[in-house]
Structure formats: structure tokens, C-alpha cells
């Protein structure tokens, strides 16, 4: 299993109700259902992914976060709301975060760090829009329209009174690395945040 998913699954308790925003082909939800006894939904817009989810028994709803939001989910419906590698692709990440913590007690968010040294290098020295393993697109066709750095994200959480329960930083292969732990905003490529509005 991908190391970031390995980390995420440790944060999901047995029997939890989970909502996975941009659930892809349902790999993570399928694992959580089978191994952790979790239940819940995935939201997805890619037709092939939706079909794969349905074939493997992952409940999936075709729903576009940008145009439909999460208004169809009641407050506190889920224990955990997941969003892996999709925050940077929605039109209003700030509002999505609000909604995540309205419908769920806890959020788990992963996104690529735009302040990683290799991206800084690309922009500073080559003068070109950065590309990397985590961000493999051209500036004109990228779905990643809201790129941010770890510091940006943490500032937004502070501003919104969102508490960061934990943060894990991994490299492009989703491996833990001591370098990334040492200087995350420069050396970490992907961060996994566990956030909440609850006090304890």
C-alpha cells in the first residue's frame, strides 16, 4: 500500500464512517471497508473511476465539489472526511475545508507542497512554471489550480480556527524521509494533515 494511505488508514478507527472527496478508483475506501470495518461514501467525477468503485463495492456518488458542494450531507454525518491530492484542484479550497469539518468531526488532507526546493529551483533559476512528480502537468492544462505551500495551508487553518492534530511529511514516492522532517516546507513534497475543529 502507498505509504501515505498507510498513514491515513492508521488514523481511521474501526467502524468509522468515512467520506472520501475525490475517491479515485476507491482503493483507499475499499481497504478501509475491508480492513478497518469502516463504511461510507466516495465522491468522484471521473467516469472510469466511478465504474471501478461500483464494481468493487465502494459506494460512490457522482458529485462535483466545485459546482455541487457538500450541501447534501448533514452536519456531523462522518467521523472522518478524507481528501487526498485533490485540495489543490478545487476552486475554493477554503470553503471545502469548512464543509469538510461541518459534515465530519475530523479531516485528513494531503496535497503537494509548492515550496519544495525542486519547484523553487524551476521557477527561480529556469524561470519556468515548475513541474515535478507530484505536479506532472503543464501550466496550461494542469487541474491543480490552487497550489499552496505547507506554510500557506497552516496559515489558513490558523485563520479559520482549524486545529492541526498531526502532520506527516513525505517525499514524491510517499516515503518518509528524515530530510523532509528536518525542513518540511523546503524538503517535503507531500504533506498529510489531520485537522479538526473539536477541542480534544
Amino acid at each position, binding site marked *: 500500500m502507498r505509504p501515505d494511505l498507510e498513514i491515513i488508514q492508521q488514523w481511521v478507527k474501526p467502524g468509522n464512517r468515512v467520506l472520501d472527496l475525490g475517491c479515485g478508483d476507491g482503493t483507499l475506501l475499499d481497504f478501509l471497508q475491508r480492513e478497518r470495518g469502516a*463504511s461510507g*461514501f466516495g465522491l468522484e467525477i471521473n*467516469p472510469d473511476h*466511478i*465504474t*471501478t*468503485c*461500483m*464494481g*468493487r*463495492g465502494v*459506494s*460512490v*456518488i*457522482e*458529485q462535483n465539489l466545485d459546482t455541487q458542494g457538500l450541501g*447534501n*450531507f*448533514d452536519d456531523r*454525518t462522518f467521523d472522518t472526511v478524507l481528501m487526498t491530492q485533490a485540495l489543490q484542484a478545487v476552486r475554493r479550497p477554503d470553503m471545502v475545508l469548512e464543509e469538510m469539518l461541518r459534515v465530519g468531526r475530523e479531516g485528513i488532507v494531503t496535497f503537494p507542497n509548492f515550496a519544495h526546493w525542486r519547484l523553487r529551483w524551476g521557477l527561480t533559476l529556469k524561470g519556468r512554471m515548475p513541474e515535478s512528480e507530484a505536479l506532472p502537468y503543464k501550466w496550461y492544462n494542469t487541474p491543480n489550480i490552487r497550489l499552496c505551500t505547507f506554510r500557506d495551508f497552516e496559515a489558513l487553518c490558523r485563520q479559520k480556527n482549524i486545529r492541526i492534530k498531526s502532520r506527516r511529511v513525505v517525499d514524491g514516492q510517499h516515503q518518509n524521509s528524515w530530510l523532509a522532517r528536518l525542513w518540511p516546507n523546503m524538503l517535503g513534497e507531500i504533506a498529510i494533515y489531520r485537522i479538526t475543529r473539536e477541542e480534544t
Partner: protein
Amino acid sequence: MPDSLPTDSVGIVTPQTLHFDAPITLACGQTLDSYDLVIETYGTLNADASNAVLICHALSGHHHAAGYHSMEERKPGWWDSCIGPGKPIDTNRFFVVSLNNLGGCHGSTGPNSVNPKTAKPYGPDFPVITVSDWVQSQALLADRLGIECWAAVVGGSLGGMQALQWSLDYPDRLRHSVVIASTPRLTAQNIAFNEVARQAITSDREFHDGRYQDFDTVPRRGLMLARMVGHITYLSDASMGEKFGRELRDQAYKFGYDAEFQVESYLRYQGERFSEMFDANTYLLMTRALDYFDPAYEYGGDLSKALAPSNCEYLVLSFSTDWRFTPARSEEMVNAMIAAKKRVSYAEIDAPWGHDAFLIPTPRYTDIFNAYMDRVAREVGA
């Protein structure tokens, strides 16, 4: 007529008539002392009877859902695109049951059957049937066939309403409910179209208050008009545009009121053909069943409360250009299922054919249907 049977066809099928002697009490309060249901089955019921799939038909449907009655038959059953060996409802794996609903006009007891009490056709005296009544009769059919629990109950449009109703009335007797191009209740616009259709029939001089059989006639004209109106609502503006556009039958306007546009002659043809094979009282009954369907009604309009007893998993599908039962209606259903903490999957399929899209095998529709039913089959070991 097929020269030879396609390899993915269930082949030549023969309907069966099952007679039921125990009285059935209907939602309207009336009782039918005995009745017949005509069914077709495809595939083989497995040893533990876990691989049965029930097909529920829509307004003008019937038991003949797949295969051919004979080599002379022009077209296969109405859902042949989805039922057969290797098709989404795979008859190599599932035992498929399809019936003509009570009140129908294809062999099951309905308005043109003989009322044993009067020895004359029921006609307008046949009780109004509801979706719940159908589900009750289908459950009795399941008993007769030795099916304790359906692997899935599947239906499009009015058939989807039955699939939904099943999950509320017999929550432990189905594992999956597949609700396609359907709605949790008709809108005022839907009811309005039904009313125009009914008025067309009842205002036909040949209708005779529904006792046309006594006068040895049928309200053909009214039935034709009803079908024409209905047919418009089954297609999309775009698909009608593509099929007919403003094409004329001849080159120039004739400055008269005959069928000059292709779309006019198409609708007339469809209406006429329908009027020859469908019963007017059944048409009234079916449209009323549609109007009355509203499982949330007893729960102050809150569908999620109505869904509380449900125990199955749902697949809900809608079609982008369906303006009869729009994707928004399906989403209403899905949202109620979410609120009721039920397991549900939903997709809106992009298809140009309006409401009729549920009968047409577009690639995405077929892929999803295949994937979901494959999983249902694996779940029941079929």
C-alpha cells in the same frame, strides 16, 4: 425477425401464466379474490435460490423483457439490450424473472380480464392499483417461485419506483435495488402530462365510460393521442431534432393541416401502433399508479424517514437529457438515502436520448451496469 439467434440472446422464450387463488387486498381497500400473473424467466435458479433478479416494467412494458417468442418475432423483448448471456443482467449467472404487472393488458389480470363475479370484463370496475400493490403481488410471486431474497430488484422509470418500493415494503427480501431513470414522486408537470393523456382517452367518443368492450369498440383515437403526448416526454429536444429536424415529407409546405413534418407522421404512426396493442383502461390505471407514487407522503414529505426500514444497497442512475424524470429527481432520492445512512451509488449518464435512454445501451451505461451487476453476482456466489 432474426435469421439466427444472436449468441448473446436468451433465445426463444415461452411465457407462463401463474394463477393465484388467495385473495389480495389492495391499497384502495378492494380485494381481488384470484388473479393471474404472466411471467417469463431466463437463466437457472441456483441451489440456494440466491441468484434471482426481478425485472419491473415501466408504463407500457410487460413480461417479455428479453429473447424472442418465435423466429418470426420482429423485435426481441423490451430490455433485450441489458438481459442475456454476457449482458449486464447476465443470464449465465442470474435467474431473471420478468412479469406483466397486475392491471396490465398482456395476460396478467387487468381491466380487460373477465370479472368472475359478473362474467364480463372488469373494464372501469378494475380497482386502481398502486406501486405498493404491485410489489405485494411480486412478493407473492417470489414465494411461489421459492425466492426468499432477490439478489436484485431492477427497474427503469415506473419500474424503478417498484425497485424503490420493494426496499421499503420488504427490506429483508432484496440485497440490491437498482433504480434507473426514476423519481421518488411525480412533479405537477408530470401529473399534468398524465392528465392530458387520460383526458384524451376518456373524451374519446368510443370510450363509453370505460365499457367500450360492451360496445365492441376501443377508444383508439384517444389512446393514440395519449401515446403521442407521452412519447414526446420520453424523447429529448435534441434527439427529436436529430431524428426529424424540420424535415418535411414532401418538398414544400402545403398550407394545410395534414402531417407535413416528419415528426408529425412519426408521432401518428407510433400512436396508431400503440392504440392497436394497448388497453385504454390499463393506460389510465398505469398513469394513476405513477401519480400516486410518493413513499414520503406518509412521512410529511421526508423521504429519508420513509427509507428508515430499508436494508439493501442502492444503485441509482439518471440520464443527462431526461426531462421527464430529471437527474435532479434521482439526486433527491440519493440525498434521502444518504441522510437515512443507506448504502448508495449514483451516476448521471451523459446520453442524448431523454427518458428513453434507459432502454438504449450507451457505453458508460453498459459499463456501470456490468460492473455493478458483476459485483452483485459475486456477492451471491453466482
